[in-house]
């Protein structure tokens, strides 16, 4: 299974600022995903990031708010832009391997004041 790391593990940010979250995988993967887990809630898919193409966003999420980069097969970033307290969540990246299952990173716990 893939080993996934995320940076930062947690952060406290001010309203109106932006934060970029990094996701690093120890092997080359085609599909990477970004999820949000709001307090007390389940996981919601934000977008899918495939190397060499634009990210595909789910309903309710837009590129201006959550720009994503996928420069190679082992790395991706998610930026949370112009943050508000409602953006306080855990953000997780995941990858899909050939076994049709997804492995998750440890998450980035974001608090917006």
């Amino acid at each position, binding site marked *: 299974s893939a080993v996934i790391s995320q940076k930062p593990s947690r952060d406290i940010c001010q309203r109106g600022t932006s934060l970029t979250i990094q996701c690093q995988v120890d092997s080359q993967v085609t599909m990477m995903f970004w999820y949000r887990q709001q307090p007390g809630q*389940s996981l919601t898919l934000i977008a899918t990031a495939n190397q060499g193409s634009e990210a595909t966003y789910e309903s309710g999420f837009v590129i201006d708010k959550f720009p994503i980069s996928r420069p190679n097969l082992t790395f991706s970033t998610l930026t949370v832009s112009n943050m508000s307290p409602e953006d306080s969540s855990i953000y*997780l990246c995941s990858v*899909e391997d050939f*076994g*049709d*299952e*997804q492995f*998750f990173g*440890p*998450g980035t716990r974001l608090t917006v004041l």
Partner: protein
Amino acid sequence: AQSVTQLDSQVPVFEEAPVELRCNYSSSVSVYLFWYVQYPNQGLQLLLKYLSGSTLVESINGFEAEFNKSQTSFHLRKPSVHISDTAEYFCAVSARGGGSNYKLTFGKGTLLTVNP
């Protein structure tokens, strides 16, 4: 599109008691089914999965789940729980075949609390 319903938001049990966490899904296509576990202040870990074959699947720490197609269920069971099993458990589904149907849809989670 798929949806997942976890009927119990919280399940408190005593140590060494049996437990069942319920999960029902709906889908217009065949699915893969998963249970993920999230221990306090940790990320998600895959607990077990059903892709094909035997409808009863097991994890290394004593959990099992049975895929019931007629009842569209994938309930998680353990005959005797430990305090260390205290965690949030998420049931998830994805459409079979990958491609554009790779998306995981999660239930809202069940908090299992094991008391001494």
